[in-house]
Structures are given as C-alpha cells and as structure tokens.
C-alpha cells in the first residue's frame, strides 16, 4: 500500500501556492518546503514502559534570493491572511544588518530549474497508525520477557520500536513536488553487570515500510543476550594494528564516518576536505565501489527528492577504488559549478539545509565470510559499532565498536576485547581492504549529525570486509 499524503499539507496547499507566487513576484528566486512529520515511539524494559511521539515536525521554510544574497525564514503557522507578513519577514531578513564592519557577503546567481511536477509515496505492508498501542506494547513485552528469562545474569532487557511518516511539499516557480514516506526502526538491547561495570549489547533493525518490521526483532533476542553475557568476560583492548574482519554494520560505520563525510561537497566549498585533491585517484582498494543516494537502496534514508527539490540520485562515489565524485546540496553546487546530487537535507523545516548523506554503502565482493576468517593468522572480528566522528580535513578515523573477537589461526578463540577505538588514516584503511564478502546489508537505525548537531536519518552498510586497522 502507498503511504497517504498529509491532510494538513493538502489543506495548506492553496495558501502555499499563493505564498510562492507572492515571493516569486518580489525576489529573484524563492522556494517553499512544507513538512508534516508524525511518529510514535514504544519502549519496554524491566522497570519501565513508555509510549511517546517519534520525530514530530509541522511547518514551513521559505528560501529567497535577492540581490545575490540568500535568506531563509522558518515558521509554524500559515493562513492566507498571513502571507503578506511572511513576505515582509523575508524582506526584513534580507535587509537585516547582522554583519559587523569588515565582513563581506557571498553572492549567488539564481538556480536554473527544470519544470517538474511530481507526486509519489513509498509503500508499506502493515499500517502503524492502524496498529493498537496495546498490541505493539504486548509484542515488545513478550520480547523483553524472553530476553530476561534467558539468563539470571541479565540485568535488563529493552525492546523498542518507532515509526515515522512524513509528507513534504516543495514549491518554486518551476517545481511542484510532493512525497510521502514511511519508515520503521526497532532494536533490542541487553545489559549485564559485573564489578560496577554494566556491559550492554544492542541489535537494531530498520526498514522502509511499516510495522511488518516487528517480526524481524524476534530473531535478535537470543544473540543480543549472549553478546551481553560474553562482554562480562571481555578484556581491555591490547593496542596495535590488526588484521580485522568487519561485520556489515562496522563496514557501514567506516563507509559513513571515515569516508562519507569527507565527500560532502559543502565541505569542498569551505576548503574543509581533502577529497578534491584525490578526484580520479586511488583512495581505496580496487575491490571498493561506494554508493550514496536516496534512490540507491530501499532503507530509512530513501526519498524521491531532497529538501531543495532536487531528485534523488544513486551516486557512485568510489568506482573500483578510484574517487569519482562527491555528493552535493544545491547551494554548494551553485558555487562549485557542479550538478546537485539530491543530498540537500534539513533536520526539520526549522533548520538549514546542508549536504548530507542518505543510504551510503559498499558494493559486495565475491568472498565467503568463512574463508575470510580462515585467512586470518592473528586478528580481530569487529562488531557492534557504537559511534563515530568525521574528520574530512585530515581524513583521520574515529570509530568505536563494542566488541573485538580474537581470531587465531583462522578460528574465533572466544576471547573478547571491549570497548575498542578504531583509528588511523582513511585511505590507508581503505587501501588495505583485501577481501569483501558476497552480500551487502544496510542498517538505518541511527541518525547522523553534521559535526555535533543537525540530526538526519541515514542508513549505511556493506559486506563483511577484511582490512588492516589500528585498534586501541
């Protein structure tokens, strides 16, 4: 079934068209993004139950260009009679004196847009809004009870699920685009305690669609509990460079944090990335082909057009080890003289658009996981990534994983190290990739920040990879 568009945006459409026309009469360029996002979040743990709203945003943002300068105005309410007030607010913002003496302003030419009329929606099997809150909590409670019953050492077991549905309408002089998207995420987490230290494992799942995802969570309960129990016997990591096998989630974190942020082209504009110096050069093993794009996969960052009205792309960033291109929002493309790639995204209508990743992943290779592990003389199997931080300028890596499992003579020994920090120089790591498994998995349970803010939904992943990585 197709996701139904928001009634609110439908009701406001006539006023928005009038506002668009009024803005276009006064300014060199103007666009409007209207957003209506609703969601629901469910969580059950040993001592707590909660139902709350998921992501939630309803409002509008106007972007206007006049005399070469851009300004944006985000607001919550719109009626036909308030249109002159919105236009006046935009006019006042363009004229506002916020710059002290000595600072200049960038100027832009208006973007050239192809006339486009578009409306579409993603699909789902089970409508979350039709599912009773009590029924969802019953299913999560059953998962929690199963997790808690598995071992007396389990301190807590959490089961959670969330769905989010949004409709966005983009209007400019030449574009009239509407999309409705629904995605769902879920996770189980187990905690166990020893000597004042709580060890936690976390297994997420996600998908473009509805609450059919809940069925996938059942299989994650037992491995999640087992991992938490294993972690009770973990040792501090012995620092060094190791031959590593990365799980698809860990590969995804490397793809996203270590390389993806470095090809966001608003960073090129600011001279904050090394990538422009490496275009058409080898930055990775010839085994590596990397994609990003809202249309490159069906996951939580899938959409039809971005928040600036650019159609979704499937961008091949690295082709067989060679860096081919970056990803871009509209304003950065205007400066760089490149084509925007459908990566202009906002946290919500109330925030600025930046170049942001969407679904970011490595293509699969031809190796079998068991052969990859068997090929390791001494090394680590890395899984359960927890966080990462970008460094586009210096191409440094910071990724944290919860578990490194020791591999000796091609076999897992059962010895575990935790927590583990991955560091190093991005091209060194990517060039060291010597094997890739024959399947790719994407996970979209997390959000991505730009620096330390501006959270947007993303997914990432890839195959199992074998690489040399510095661990600490």
């Amino acid at each position, binding site marked *: 079934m197709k996701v139904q568009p928001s009634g609110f945006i439908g009701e406001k459409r006539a006023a928005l068209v009038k506002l668009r026309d009024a803005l276009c009469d006064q300014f060199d360029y103007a666009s409007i993004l209207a957003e209506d996002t609703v969601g629901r979040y469910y969580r059950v743990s040993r001592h*707590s139950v909660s*139902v709350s*709203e998921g992501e939630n945003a309803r*409002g509008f943002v106007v972007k206007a260009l006049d005399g070469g300068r851009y300004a944006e105005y*985000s*607001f919550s309410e719109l009626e036909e009679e308030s249109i002159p007030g919105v236009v006046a607010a935009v006019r006042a913002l363009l004229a506002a004196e916020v710059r002290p003496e000595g600072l200049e302003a960038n100027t832009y030419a208006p973007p050239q847009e192809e006339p486009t009329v578009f409306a579409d929606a993603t699909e789902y099997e089970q409508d979350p809004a039709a599912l009773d809150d009590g029924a969802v909590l019953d299913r999560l409670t059953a998962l929690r009870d199963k997790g808690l019953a598995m071992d007396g050492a389990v301190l807590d077991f959490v089961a959670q699920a969330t769905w989010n549905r949004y409709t966005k309408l983009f209007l400019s002089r030449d574009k009239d685009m509407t999309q409705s998207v629904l995605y769902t995420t879920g996770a189980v987490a187990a905690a166990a305690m020893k000597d004042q230290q709580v060890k936690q494992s976390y297994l997420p799942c996600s998908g473009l669609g509805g609450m059919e995802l809940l069925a996938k969570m059942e299989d994650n309960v037992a491995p999640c509990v087992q991992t938490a129990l294993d972690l009770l016997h973990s040792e501090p990591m012995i620092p060094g460079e190791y031959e590593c096998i990365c799980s698809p989630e860990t590969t995804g974190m490397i793809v996203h944090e270590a390389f993806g942020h470095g090809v966001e082209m608003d960073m090129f504009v*600011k001279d904050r990335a090394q990538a422009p110096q490496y275009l058409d050069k080898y930055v990775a093993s010839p085994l590596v082909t990397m994609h990003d794009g809202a249309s490159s996969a069906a996951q939580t960052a899938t959409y039809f057009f971005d928040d600036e009205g650019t159609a979704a792309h499937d961008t091949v960033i690295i082709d067989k080890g060679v860096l081919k291109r970056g990803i871009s929002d509209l304003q950065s493309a205007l400066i760089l003289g490149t084509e925007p790639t459908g990566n202009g995204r906002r946290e919500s209508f109330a925030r600025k658009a930046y170049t942001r990743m969407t679904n970011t992943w490595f293509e699969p290779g031809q190796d079998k996981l068991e052969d990859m592990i068997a090929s390791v003389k001494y090394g680590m199997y890395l899984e359960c990534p927890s966080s990462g931080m970008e460094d586009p*300028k210096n191409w*440094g890596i910071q990724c944290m994983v919860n578990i490194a499992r020791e591999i000796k003579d091609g076999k897992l020994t059962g010895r575990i190290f935790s927590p583990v920090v991955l560091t190093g120089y991005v091209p060194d790591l990517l060039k060291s990739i010597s094997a890739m498994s024959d399947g790719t998995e994407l996970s979209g349970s997390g959000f991505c920040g730009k620096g330390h803010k501006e959270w947007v939904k993303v997914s990432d992943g890839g195959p199992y990879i074998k690489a040399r990585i510095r661990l600490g």
Partner: protein
Amino acid sequence: MEKIISALHELGVEQYVITEKHTDSLEAFYVKKNLDLTRRADTTVRTVRVFRPFEKDGAKMLGDSEATVRPGMSEEEIRTALAGAWYAAQFVANPWYPLPAGVKAPRRADNGGFGSRSLAESMKDVTEALFAEDTAQDVFLNSAEIFMRRIETRIVSSENADVSWEQVEVWGEYVCQCRTPQDVETYHQFCYREPSPEALRAEVRHALEMTKARARAVAAPKTGTYALVLDREQVGTLLSYYVDRSNSGMIYQKYSPFKLGDDAQGADIAGDRLTMGLKATAPYTDFGAPMGDRPLLENGVLRTIHGGARFGHYLGVEPTGNYRAVTVPVGTTPMDELTKEPCLHAVSFSDFQMDPLSGHFGGEIRLAFLHENGTVTPVTGGSVNGSILDGQGHMTFSKERFRSKDYDGPLAVRVEGVNVAGE
C-alpha cells in the same frame, strides 16, 4: 492553552502537564569572513503529557503518554491528538507515583544582558567579538555558525503549575584552519547567556594557537600507559560519569550502584577528593516546580540522587528535576605543575566520550602535547582508552578555572595510568 485544557477536560483527563515553547532564532552562517546565509526560525511547540491512573493485577499504576499540539491545529485535531495520548497511557503500566506540585509565578524576564536588546544587535556584537582575533594570514577562521535565540517557555499543569520564563542565549561553532606546515583544522563551540565579548575573544585566541600547534603535530604518541591531562570541555565530559550514575533512573534500574552517603569516588583515593554541585539551567522543573542548585558530591561522598518524579518516588528520594550542568571547585595545583613530565596533555579529540555504564572514556586524539625529556612535542593520532573506575583515585585538579555552558570548574585534570594506543 485554553483550547487544550478544555479538550483535556472533555476527555476526562485529570492529570496533565502542558509545556509551550516559542523560539525566535536569528542565525548567521559564515564561510571565511563572508556571510553566506541569514536565517530566522520563528517556531512554537506545545507538548501535552497526560497521566492515567489504573489498576493492573491488583496494583495501582500510573501510565503516561504525550501529544504535540501544533500551531494551526483545529479543535477537532487537538482533541484527536490528545485522545491518542490518553488512549496509549492506559497501556503504560508503570507503578503509581505522585506528580510533583508546581507553583504559580509571574513571568521571569531574562536580565542577563541579551534580554534587553534585539537579536540582530546582539548578533552583530557577538560576530564582531568572534572575528576580532582573526587577523593572521597563516591561521584563521575557516567558517562559523552563530545562533542567537530568544526562548519563551510556559508550563501549566493540573498540579497547580503556571510558570513562564524567557531565556536569551547565543550558541555558535567555528572551525579554525592553519595551512602551514600542513593544512589542518580544529573545531570549537561556544555558548553564552550574557554578553561576554572578552571571554569569546580569549577562546578564539586559544583556538587559533591550538590550531597552529596542530599544524606542527605529525606523529602519534607511542603506545603505552600515560599520566593523561585533560582540559576544558573534556573535564566536564569525564565528570559527567558522576552526574549520570547518581540519576534516580540509573540507580533504580540497577545500572548504577550509587547510594546516598556512599563513597562514589571509591574508597582508595590518593589524589584530590572530588566535590561537585548540580547547577539548575532553568528556573523550574518539567512539572513547574522551582529548581535550584544542589550539592552532588562532597569530598567524594554522594549527597544527592537527582532525577524526575517517577524513579524518585520509587527510590524514596525527592524528585529534583533533571540536571546536566555542574560546578566543581578548582584544585590547588597550577597548570605548569599539573603538566610536569612525563605526561600526555590531550587538548583536542575527534569526539571525547564517557560511557557511564562501563566507566570507560576515550577517543581519537586530534592534538596532544607530550611532555617528556625536557621537551614539549605536539602529537596527533592514536587514541585514549581509559577507565574512570581505575583512575578516579588518582585525579589531580588544576588551580585555574574554565567555564562553559554546562561546566564551571577546574581547567584541567590529571589522571594517572591511562592506556593510549599510538605508534
């Protein structure tokens, strides 16, 4: 507000908290010294939390859920949203607890200095201070984002609360770049609730100096165990372990073993004993009750378990509201003594993190100074992987002070015996 309360009464909701937040944000985005974009966000959000008492298996329960009432919603839409929350609350089977009483009080204006001026005037002054130190050719501000915000908050509850207050603040981030001898950058944030041009200029001066040092750093430290000195925001992040572990939710759910009167810092303390205070960052709690500063630790001993109404009631402690900011008295050791060799003084990380569950802290080193053999060498790369459970008995705090949005305390802390992975 009246429409919401009326709809709640129609639904039979007797216990609720309504929070209304109006934000007017003026924003400026700079690339080098050029203004790239000016933004304004004028938004309102009303969140309604409903509480529903019921019985389950003979036990008294109090469920809750929330709905957002958005601008432009019709009365019918408001009723539907609230009914959805009221319906969901009956399935949220948490043991009953009393809701804290609120107070009624006149609106509190922000008298911190920003409050009396327009956002545009304040923005211009902050921008001037931010760029005032950007005068060199070799090291400069690469880009900056400045958010000047006026936030009006009102809380109304069924438990007698009706309070409102204004808060005006500036939050910003900037990136410094140095092109020689290698092209590098460093990232920085600032937040002030009153005009502080001299403090901002001093922070930018320091940031530019550190960026020049980063450009000279070429190698990672050698793998080993170090006396680690952390400074500025990293000290607050390290000490957030004690804030998180003394939270009533963490304690009730047994994620934290802390008890009032316990030696939270451990029994074997060879270094400085830790005293910390919780600092209120809003005048009222989420329930509209007055919120003030409280002692957290005194000489390592836990004095307050803090948190919301539910877990506070379960533990039998006063619900204090939620805290994130701390004050810490400065130590007695001057910086030059704190950094006496051998030690690794880490001033910048990719993302320094503290895990309150395991006590592990660490991150990738962007810039550190290695003090050994009579020299101070800037280093970069590698990572810190420490445990506060191992290090808390051997912490020494600086005599110098550092203030940021959520931390006011010693500029630096020295922790002995921390693992560093490097060359």
